[in-house]
């Protein structure tokens, strides 16, 4: 199976690889997937408390090229969005942007899960109620 140009580009030049200080109150961390399934994504957001704006986002991913590209693209999209806007990111947007084939849709679902998990971690740390999301079929 051939990868799309965009997946290859993110794989070769991943954006925002790295680690934020998870002990900080305004950093939310999402760790999703499992080594046994061949994908683990860790996605982190740093939020400006005053504006609710995501000022930084970082990822590290163990997985195939599509998983790496999905998380790289997700961090790009997160930066500059408010937390409320970030919640709206849908996995199908990632699928469309990266031209992921059907067998790779789970990579985008995982990235969406990682975003939501990072947001909830941030909310929990800041005394907010965790959001409840409908489970997607993986």
């Amino acid at each position, binding site marked *: *199976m051939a*990868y799309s140009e965009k997946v*290859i580009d993110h*794989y070769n030049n*991943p954006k925002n*690889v790295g*680690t934020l200080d998870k002990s900080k109150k305004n950093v939310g961390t999402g*760790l*999703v*997937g*499992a*080594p*046994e*399934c*061949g*994908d*683990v*994504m*860790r996605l982190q957001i740093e939020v400006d408390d005053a504006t609710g704006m995501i000022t930084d986002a970082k990822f*590290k*991913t*163990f*997985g*195939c*090229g599509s*998983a*790496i590209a999905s998380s790289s693209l997700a961090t790009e999209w997160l930066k500059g969005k408010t937390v409320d806007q970030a919640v709206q990111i849908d996995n199908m947007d990632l699928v469309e942007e990266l031209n992921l084939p059907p*067998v*790779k849709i*789970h990579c985008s679902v*995982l990235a969406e899960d990682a975003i939501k998990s990072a947001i909830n971690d941030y909310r929990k740390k800041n005394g907010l109620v965790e959001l409840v999301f409908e489970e997607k079929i*993986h």
Partner: protein
Amino acid sequence: MLKLPIYLDNNATTPMDPRVLEAMIPFFTEHFGNAASRNHPFGWEAEEAVDYAREQVAKLVGADPKEIIFTSGATEGDNLGIKGVFEMYSSKGNHIITCTTEHKAVLDTCKHIERSGGEVTYLEVKADGLIDLKELEAAIKPTTILIAIMYANNEIGVIQPVKEIGAIAKKHGVLFFSDAVQAVGKVPVDVTKDGIDIMAFTAHKMYGPKGIGALYVRRKNPRVKVTAQMDGGGHERGMRSGTLNVPGIVGFGKACELARLEMADDAARLSKLRDKLETALVQLEETYVNGNRDHRLPHVTNISFKYVEGEGLLMGFNKHIALSSGSACTSASLEPSYVLKALGLGDDLAHSSLRFGLGRFTTEEQIDYTIKAVGDTVIKLREMSPLWEMFKEGVDIDKIEWAHH
């Protein structure tokens, strides 16, 4: 000079040797006859070519030419060998012994047999990929008619103790079938010395054409018969009907002859290159060779690069290097290699594996390039891997409660 792209997937298929192609060409146009046409020169020359090729094939595996049944390949050979024995010897018993790391063509054939009223024992393999001979012997019962154990494994290259298996089979009066696809032409295979009664192999894994293979069926001590799985003109001593693929057979014969003459040199050269590759790559931290390293094909190594996912790893160099991964990220099940799991590898290590299969046309420059490309990509992806970061921080990844999906 470095030749790109580099093909290191020779367990999947091999390129055809130009000498094989050369031998085949006249049999497409000039000598196109049907080998079964007994009444004219077109048929005679085709038959003569088939007879000659049959000798070349037989000679490579220490068989008599009459014991070679041409098939379309090893999947057909596996089906014909196993189902053919099951049907032919049904009055004697219905039990077959095989092992969990066999090729799907054997495993799925065995499943079919179970659905047809047969009984199959699937032996586990040890951590090095080899079967336990004591377990094999203990699994034999009065209804056992066949032991089906592969010669060499397609994913990890380990060579089963074939002679010992053959001896156990003989001692108990059970037939021994071996899928020898990966071994024939690569290491010395001798059906008599190895005690094999039925053996499937194929041309395209040994620099011959695709679509042609053979089933060896022993004619004496004991005389073995298999029930045909296709009805028709009764070709190949009634065991495999269908007009013979003369150009394919000619090419298969030539490939066998070349293998017989060049095997020792090829193996010596390739094992040196394989060892160079393996030695260099295991210098990387947390890198492991899968399967027994002493009883192994000379041109294969299977390596797990922990904390890096195999398919993601391949992507780092698959423009220039063709390799296979034990990961199955593209399959709907997300299940990694069942062979590696049978060795007791965790799913994470199975997902992190690559199979390197060298071949007759692999050069040292290509191996040097591969060492660097794979090493660089592993390092790059580990920098990107959350699991590597946890490992480096001393977090026990097995203790984390992962959300399985």
